[in-house]
């Protein structure tokens, strides 16, 4: 009885912490991106609103929430609202399988800082990633606008192609570790002492491409190429309904996938014990934010591909490479033991 209550409280606390941190972090990632882009472009980002512009996301959020609600003429109302939910919910649910650090003990119970320690965590990851496509598709269809429609069709083509490649890329790491459970993968890396990026550099690069494609960032942001499609699939959304889309796609998705990449390739929370009992958490955060920095850097530097080139790239080049990588890894494991 005590156990059940305790477990229930622990899960509730975990969910609340994850929700609060991710939504708060998502909002502040906008501040971070604007500052980063500003300094890259020889200017300062927000500086006026609060010290260093730190209150800017609050002003943005306040303004977006108090805009008059818009319902354009001719939309499919049910799908219009469902699109927002379908974009936000899978992005948040991705955080359910992200491990933030090593397990620790409180009051005699061992707690793992992960909301749901699934044995099929990687499979769950693919599922949630694919579901995120529905948000864009519904938004494009329900908006009754040609730009939105074209944008969402492009995104659908993108997600379908890159999900397959993502699957094969992540599967190579799963083969090496022998399990889909994230804790087992990190433990395997800590035990062997070498991070999997050394064993699987090709798979790392492929996963990086898929991260850029899934979250719709340059050079794969064809669904909202500004010069062609104004703002793509969210052209008819205003106020906070609009605010959810970049939050879910550009920030939450990227953050979750960066965290998973840190787990799969960089050993999760492994690192020298320099910071006392919290060093695992700090290493994990450092790796995630390092990858995020790289993703933002790519976004603000490179031009974007054409829609047909992106899809061609995935099917003609990335898919054969990922399959070869998988087969090669399988052979190596079989023969090396």
């Amino acid at each position, binding site marked *: 009885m005590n156990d059940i209550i305790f477990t229930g409280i622990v899960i509730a606390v975990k969910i609340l912490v994850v929700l609060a941190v991710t939504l708060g972090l998502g909002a502040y990632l906008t501040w971070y991106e604007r500052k980063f*882009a500003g300094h*890259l*472009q*020889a*200017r300062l980002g927000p500086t006026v609103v609060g010290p260093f512009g730190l209150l800017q996301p609050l002003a943005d959020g306040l303004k977006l929430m108090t805009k008059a609600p818009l319902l354009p003429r001719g939309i499919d109302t049910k799908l219009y609202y469902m699109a927002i939910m379908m974009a936000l919910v899978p992005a948040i649910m991705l955080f359910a399988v992200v491990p933030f650090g090593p397990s620790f003990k409180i009051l005699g119970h061992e707690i793992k800082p992960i909301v749901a320690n699934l044995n099929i965590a990687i499979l769950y990851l693919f599922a949630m990633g694919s579901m995120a496509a529905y948000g864009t598709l519904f938004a494009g269809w329900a908006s009754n606008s*040609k*730009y939105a429609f*074209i944008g969402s069709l492009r995104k659908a083509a993108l997600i379908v192609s890159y999900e397959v490649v993502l699957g094969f890329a992540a599967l190579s790491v799963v083969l090496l570790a022998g399990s889909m459970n994230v804790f087992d993968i990190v433990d395997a890396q800590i035990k062997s002492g070498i991070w999997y990026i050394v064993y699987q550099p090709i798979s790392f690069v492929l996963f990086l491409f898929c991260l850029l494609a899934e979250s719709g960032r*340059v*050079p794969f*942001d*064809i669904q909202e*190429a*500004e*010069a*062609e499609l*104004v703002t793509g699939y969210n052209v008819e959304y205003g106020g906070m309904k609009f605010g959810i889309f970049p939050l879910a796609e550009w920030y939450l998705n990227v953050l979750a996938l960066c965290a998973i990449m840190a787990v799969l390739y960089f050993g999760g929370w492994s690192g020298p014990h320099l910071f006392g009992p919290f060093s695992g958490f700090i290493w994990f955060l450092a790796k995630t934010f390092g990858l995020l920095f790289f993703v933002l850097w790519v976004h*603000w*530097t*490179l*031009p*974007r*591909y*054409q*829609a*047909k*080139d992106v899809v061609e790239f995935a099917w003609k080049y990335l898919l054969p490479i990922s399959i070869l990588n998988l087969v090669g890894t399988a052979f190596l494991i079989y023969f090396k033991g």
Partner: protein
Amino acid sequence: MPWASEETLNRIKRSFRTVDVYKSPHFARISVENTHDITNVLKHLKDVEDFRYFIDFHVIDFPKEKERFLGQYILVNPYNFERLVVKVWFKSNKLPTAKNIFAGAKWAEREAYDMFGVEFEGHEDVKRMFMWEDYKHFPLRKDFPLGGIPEQRLPSLTELIEGNTLPPSHDYELMHTYVPTIQDIEKTEKSRITKRGQLVLNWGPLHPGTHGTMWFLFDLEGEHIIQTDVILGQLHRGMEKIAENLHYFQFLPYTDRMDYLSAVCSELSYVQSVEKLANIEVPLKAKYIRTMFAELQRINSHLLWLGTGALDLGALTVFLYAFREREKIMDLIEGNAGFRLTSAFLRIGGVHYDLAKGTLEVAKHFVKDFYSKLKEYNGLLTRNRIWLKRTKDVGIITQEDVYQYGLTGPVARGSGISYDMRKIDPYAAYDLVDFDIPVGDVGDVYDRYLVRMEEMYQSAKIVEQCIEALEKMPPNEPYVNKKHPVVIPPKEDVFNDLEDMVKSFRIVVHGENIPKGEIYSSGENPRGELGFYIHSIGKSSPYRLRIRSCSFYNLSVFPKVIEKHTISDAVALLGSIDPVVGETDR
């Protein structure tokens, strides 16, 4: 040499009995006397005499003559760069169309119909170019007033909301010309394209991706474009009509606002047409100053092209780097002219002010720094795989397209035709400086990109040479030719000398008396050949001022080249053609 020679004109007169030829140092024309002969004359000129490069077609309204309208073609021989004007009178407002001989005449004839109400046999179903479909008037006719016909009450909404005050809060005319409704605009849109594909997309007038208010209609099949049409006129402000009501020097600020990215180059073309017409000699220092600022503005304009071109294709940061360089040039111009963007810096007869103190040092420093920045931009884009994939073999423009549609500037040079007015008919100080003209091979977007990058480098070299020449000049060289009876003297003389004050007063109030005659003269804008045709009857304002705008003809090749490409290619192609709407619509 720009104008057709005596032998050519005599040869043409021998082939056709019913033409009349005339030649002067600044003009060479043939007048066709029978209207139905014009098709044969044009065919002969194109096929036999090799005048195959179509430059312009326009109409002049003479309400007192028997046949009211006079049409004029301007043609160029691309092998020896000779120019010829062909005049023909309309017969009861009709003329055989030239669109089967020169494809670029299609748009020119539509504009003539829109502005004058003339018809063209063989060009059925001609649509309006700038005004909307149901517009009832023909603006450039001499009996139509400049302010239009005010027919509806349109009060200011601010006054209505904040409250009517007596006297009114701000001074405005209550009666206004007719403003079209959304239904009028939709009718215009539907009449332009008959749908053959799956959906018709409005790459609309108010869009961040088009470089201004141009309106494209794409007939799409999936992502591929089957047919396109371009609707212009969203920035048609009526500059040609304004010129007929103003003195020559008063029209100068309007030439700035046409191609607002490189204001000094447009001013230079205009100012030198008037100078050729009135035979004004410009002092040497003014020539060097004009050249230096024109080349700085060319760098300015190409930097903006680079920034927005890269921005449209997704490289968001190049835009900001290019604007950083633009700010430095704008500082130079602001220090000399007082204005950043549309500075009316040139005057008929010279320049407005002498060079400000310190300009030459700042310019020298800028040029030295610019070479390293050019290397940086090249490093970011020229060998980038994604950039190459987006721009190579996209939007190929052939040499025949260039001749037929009248393309000039980097668009023509990218396809291999070295047509540059700075070398053909040198003006300002271009014959005293040393520079090269980059020419491309294939004519795709990548070639035009390389041509413009190299042109920036060449312009920097010209600026360096001008700075050297200006440094060597003695300090009190004149910068305005104030002895000529038509030129307004510079301000410091007006305030200190009685005769100059009287002369300035007389010209400003009554206008100059430019001698009778006509002239066509053009200069090399960063976008192409900007030409001014002035027909003067001896008064202080021109009888007809025709602006041969380079962006207008450059844009007319877009519907042909974009067929079977995708929307993303359309973005890249439009960026490489680099139109400015102030110039296409005037």
